[in-house]
């Protein structure tokens, strides 16, 4: 593809990103986003036992249509690089320790964002022998995104509550 064709395609296509939309999110009482995270946060995602519905929405939130990166949120590969830990799903027996270790390995001050209804009350998986509990049983969640699965707008709204952009 020649450069001119590419440029003309870009101009023809224009901005396809969805506009900012308000969505219901719940924040912990007294939660104030840390000042040093204003404007830009790095996100490490932990799937503690999700059905992967939330992961699809999370992937969409960072895709070109919703583009969470324009609000300063970016997915990173290691908690050592991260400011925010996003958690989805119920916490399975095997994921209790890795989840807590990942959160401990994230530098302070950090923000925990739980995504999806399973992170509160375990949804349809409640009572399974493989489930150790829901996310808020184990960690103090700062921002919760309700929904099964939540829409990408809601995930972006949660991250914007931290970056304040």
């Amino acid at each position: 593809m020649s450069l001119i064709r590419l440029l003309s395609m870009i101009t023809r296509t224009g901005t396809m990103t969805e506009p900012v939309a308000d969505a219901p999110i719940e924040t912990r009482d007294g939660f104030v986003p840390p000042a040093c995270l204003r404007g830009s946060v790095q996100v490490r995602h932990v799937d503690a036992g999700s059905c992967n519905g939330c992961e699809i929405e999370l992937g969409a939130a960072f895709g070109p249509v919703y583009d969470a990166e324009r609000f300063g949120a970016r997915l990173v590969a290691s908690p050592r690089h991260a400011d925010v830990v996003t958690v989805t799903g119920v916490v399975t027996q095997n994921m209790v320790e890795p989840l807590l270790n990942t959160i401990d390995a994230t530098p302070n001050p950090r923000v925990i964002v739980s995504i999806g209804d399973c992170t509160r009350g375990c949804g349809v998986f409640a009572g399974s022998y493989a489930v150790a509990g829901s996310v808020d049983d184990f960690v103090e969640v700062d921002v919760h995104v309700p929904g099964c699965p939540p829409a990408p707008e809601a995930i972006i709204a949660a991250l914007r509550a931290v970056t304040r952009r």
Partner: protein
Amino acid sequence: MNLVDAGLYGLLGSATVAIVMAIVLTGRVRNVIAGLAVLATGVAAALTGLATLLGYSGTGLAIPVALPLVGDLDALVLAPDRLGGFFMLLAGLVIAASALFGIGYAHGPAASRTGWTGFAAFALGVVLVPAAADAITFLLAWELMALGSTVLLLAEHATRQAVRAATIWYAVMTHLSFLLLLAGFGVLINAAGGTSWARMVGIAEPTASLAFALLVAGFATKAGLVPVHVWLPRAHPEAPSHASAAMSAAMVKMGIYGILLVTLRLLPNGPSWWAVVLVALGAISALYGILQASVQSDLKRLLAYSTTENVGLITTAIGVGLLLHQSGQHAAADVALIAALLLALSHAAFKTVLFLGAGAVLHATGERDLDQLGGLASRMPITALTFGVGALGAAALPVTSGFVAEWVLLQALIHADAKTDRLLAVVMPLTMGVVALTIGLGLLTFVKAAGIGFLARPRSQAASEASEVGFSMRLALLGSAGLTIGLGLIPGPLSQLLAGAVGASGIATTGLTGLELGGLGVVVLNPLALTALTLVLLAGVLVVNGIASRRHPRREVELPWGCGGERTSPRMEYNATSYSEPLARVFGGSLHTRRSVEVEHPDDAPLLVSGIEFNQETVDLVEHRVYLPAARLAERFGDFARKLQNGSIHRYVGFSFAALLLVLVLVTR
């Protein structure tokens, strides 16, 4: 009596006191008093050397000893010239630092009567070798040095089997060296008709070449050049650390002094193949030494191989200097010779730090295997700091003497005009390549030595329980590290002094501390100014960093990241073997690393793995291909001789009868 003679009396006196005190006193007091007396010997030698370098010359100290068989030959005289003075300075400083370290370090057999007497005799021998003004005194001092060091090496023979094997290797090699020197000086004395250096002038070919070959072979054995380096990696690890520091930093330099004595003073203006032999010996030693060092995980063995590397570089520099003199490029040749002296002094300084540092680690942990160390930087801060300085020096990085010395050597190589001469056109680029590769590998080696040894988390119980060593050891470490940095920052005045030692011109001090190689055009190095400039620039970065860290305080992490688990055992760390694995692979052909991986399975489940064992050992190629076959041959010869001598009196009578018959037949013919 002038300064030099006073210094010589001083060092002889203090060495005598040291020996007497080592014999008379006992226990802790012996360590302190004998150690201080050896320290005084070193200081006296260093001052004598310095006085000689500064241009004071003594009348010499004639030793009134009637030796049998010497007859009408010259008297035994101690009268160092400037070159000898330089090596006295070098050896004196090393001995002083090692003795100071020994006060705190020596324990067990090394602190015994024999241990300290051996050390004092060895120290006296080392500082007298460069002071000798005739061949007999030289050989006597040489043998004193060799015997003293052998006794030191044997210190722990009762508790560790490896010590005996190492001592046998060392004793054989050091006496091989002595025999070659004896033969070489014999040739010279026969040709010159006298034993003093002053009379050994104008010796013609081919006697000169014969003497050169014998003497250089002898000195190379002492200096630890390939292929006669085999005693170094065995003897240095097994000797007590203050002794290995003195052996590696001072004693092997006497080999270098010998080579300089032969090529500059006794037999100057030799044919060009002499120089080529020296360059080749040096280049092979430098490369082989550093390659072996880079894959070692025993800290002291690594340092021993690095000694071979550095001695190789020094010999290369001497060879290059001689080669350039022969082709008439005296300016570049002078710079190369100065580089040789600077390399020698710099190696003495940083190798003292490194061996003493290794000794401190050994003292604190009982370990010299890098794979068992780690985490010592926080537990032994002074040792770690000084070892770091030594490692910087060995890696030839700025602010240390190693950088200045190798910079000067590279300047000589770069500024030599290789186009005029076919020989130079071949030798110079190859040498430059070898020096560059050596420096690069040296960097890797010493990043490993300092990084794996002192950083990260402790890899063994012993390393995690280490604590800082005592006062005298810290003082010795700081002193020698200070010398390494001092030479690196203020190279000018000393280089100017050294120029006098090898009769070089065009080396000057610039701006009080800097070094100017005037003979090569405008070539100036002013490390102090460069360091000051770097610090000023760095200050800006520090200010910005300080402001930034005030605005954004450090964010704390509660747990090191172990991929979700808490798998951060020290066994997960990079260790010395894994660090050098790429090198062992790349240079596998010349290193001959043997690896084996053994996987164990449970009896009832052959598909499961219950354990994996990995072994790697590097073998010294020269030792395996040359020495062991030679030893086997000697053994076979011995077996054959044993058959002749089976203890039967009848056979011996038969031998006598056969010999008598043979004599009668020969006489009557």
